[in-house]
């Protein structure tokens, strides 16, 4: 595969976290296990461990984000990092400073780790190829390519509820074409030996040759949901109505919206997930979103532990067991 191992150091440990593709099952499992050791931190009076004490993390968001950015920031704070968060006005960088100049100026401020979201596919690899040795890059979403921490928190959620992947049928529903989340999820699910990964979307939102990623394709939501154990709904961007990708939100909901009735086709104990932010009444009915099968809010809280896990593995510590005693840095 052309995906080289820029993400790993010579000992096979995480150096950057750019894409699920290129990693192996052992690393994904280690991330999930490490995240497990961090979930208890949130329940403490003092929600901090000193794993990133003395380290500086820059959150560089070239694209708007609420949830991803805030869970990264919380994860960094709970690991006791110093934090610099920048919403970069992309038009300003286009006009003046080049991307690399922005990055190098920040590097000059002794940043140890960059969390970057950028609208170009491949930007995370690009930054990782150009940072100084010892500086790490975490991909918080690059164009339509990957969003690996989101996929890992989804895997964490699935494992939390379903324990083992090998017997699972998982359906990913919606705008697969534009979704970096879907790409990362598909790689992660396959690496974790999921029995079947289905993608369900209208043809205009289905990437060409998507079956080459190891999924089966469904044009029909009702058929695609049959007997699945996990339903992952994707956000439908409103701008997809322009450019002739879809006729209307109403028709989309009629064909691909997740209703209580349709959910009945899935396994009775199926869980419903959504990376957020959701459009109620467009891709998902409110009663499903707030229903007992929905684990959407749990996903968000697991997101903090998973991001803590990835960052601590990058600085060479696998979870709390090998770290210094918690709570020292309040």
């Amino acid at each position, binding site marked *: 595969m*052309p*995906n*080289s191992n*820029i993400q790993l150091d010579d000992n096979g440990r995480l150096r950057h976290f750019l894409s699920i*593709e290129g990693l192996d099952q052992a690393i994904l499992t280690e991330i999930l296990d490490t995240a497990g050791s961090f979930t208890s931190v949130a329940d403490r009076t003092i929600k901090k461990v000193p794993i990133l004490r003395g380290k500086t993390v820059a959150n560089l968001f070239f694209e708007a984000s609420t949830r991803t950015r805030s869970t990264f920031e919380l994860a960094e704070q709970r690991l006791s990092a110093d934090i610099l968060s920048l919403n970069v006005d992309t038009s300003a960088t286009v006009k003046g400073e*080049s*991307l*690399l100049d922005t990055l190098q100026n920040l590097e000059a401020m002794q940043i140890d780790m960059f969390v970057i979201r*950028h609208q*170009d*596919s*491949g*930007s995370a*690899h*690009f930054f990782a190829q150009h940072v100084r040795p010892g500086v790490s890059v975490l991909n918080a979403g*690059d*164009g*339509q*390519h*990957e969003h690996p921490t989101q996929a890992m928190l989804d895997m964490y959620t699935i494992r939390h509820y379903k324990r083992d992947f090998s017997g699972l049928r998982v359906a990913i529903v919606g705008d697969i074409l534009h979704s*970096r989340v879907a*790409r990362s999820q598909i790689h992660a699910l396959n690496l974790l030996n999921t029995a079947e990964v289905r993608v369900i979307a209208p043809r205009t939102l289905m*990437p*060409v*040759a*998507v079956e*080459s*990623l190891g999924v089966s394709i469904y044009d029909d939501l009702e058929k695609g949901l049959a007997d699945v154990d996990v339903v992952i709904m994707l956000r439908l961007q409103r701008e997809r109505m322009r450019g002739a990708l879809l006729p209307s939100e109403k028709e989309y909901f009629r064909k691909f919206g997740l209703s209580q009735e349709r959910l009945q086709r899935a396994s009775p104990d199926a869980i419903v997930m959504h990376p957020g932010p959701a459009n109620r009444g467009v891709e998902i009915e409110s009663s499903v979103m707030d229903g007992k099968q929905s684990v959407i809010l749990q996903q968000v809280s697991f997101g903090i532990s998973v991001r803590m896990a990835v960052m601590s593995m990058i600085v060479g510590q696998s979870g709390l067991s090998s770290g210094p005693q918690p709570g020292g840095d309040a």
Partner: protein
Amino acid sequence: MSLHICNGRVVGVAESSIRTLDVYLQNGKIVGLGSAPNGFRAKQVIDAENRLILPGLIDCQARLRDPGEPEKANIESETRAAVKNGITGLCIPPDTQPPIDNSATVELIHHRNEMFGHQARVFPIGALTRGLGGEQLSNMASLCANGCVAFSNAKHPLASNLVQRRAMDYARGQQALVVIQPLDHDLLGSGCAHEGAIATRLGLPSIPEAAETAALAKDIELVAQTGARTHFGQLSCARSVDMVRRAKAKGLPISADCAIHQLFLTDHDIGNFDSNMLTIPPLRVQADRDALRKGLADGTIDCLCSDHQPHEVDAKLKPFPSAEPGISGLDTLLALALRLVAEDVLSLPDLIAKLTMNPASIFGLPGGNIGVGEAADLIIVDPDSHWICDAAAFVSKGKNTAFQGWDFHGSVTHTLIDGKVVYQS
């Protein structure tokens, strides 16, 4: 000035032969082959033993970035690269800044080539529409009179099929060649990679084959309608090769070229978002590459070009979708072409015809053949010399190669234009 090249193996593109023949040059012409004309006395003798003598290469699509983009390249740097690599003639598309849509720009280019160039012949292709804006016809008759060899709108869209039809009608009236790179801009969109498994995996905005083939189908219909002599540039798809083959069989006045990198690279080469692999049209898949090679061998594709697009470092130092498309190709054109012979795609004379006689005949240019009375644009090539491609050693100002580290055989030892040695290794 008279010159005698002895003991070389002359590649005859017209008769598809390779023969050991002495070549005699005088006053910018080839005056004798095999035997000297009466009274010939050589001022200089070049011994070309174990080397090939070829017509100077004619690259029918190369951007010199002059005028307008000196940070990328200029006539001085690129003609130096050309003659070092055996390219004696360059057709340059009109998307300079300002575009080649007026006589002053044509004169400026010729003037700069005379002042700063390295004797390579530069053939401007005029803009089909004013400012390449796609709406008003350019002054084609004046541009022809000033030396434009064809007309094209480069990669800029035309406002409508009506404008295209009229431009082709008008060009026909001037007996001018129209050059079209078939591209539907709506289907192109913001795409940057071939629509297929690789673009899907990398999440890159994709370019379907129909961005080329839908445009080509319409273009062929407009050739049938107008009778304008038309050359299709830089084809990339198997289906395009089929369409051109069928249109030629119907007797339409068309010809075609492909960029040489399309015969060696596919979308797999994008690897980890390597921006040097970003081209428009995009690198496609193995089946397309094979069909282009077949089309080249069976004559559907008449010419090979470098599609040379030199860039400054910063243009490629960006995430893949934001980088600028194009490959710096002058330094690798001949070596890649010779690989096609080594890989049995076609014979050496037939290959060289695609780089000499065919573009000369389609674009109406001097040279392109080694025969008595022809212009003495010749190159001498050592076919066995081995080298490893290294952008740092490129003569072109553009170091944006897609072939870094490739093993090549064959390099130019002499380039002669108008009977004068303009490069010697």
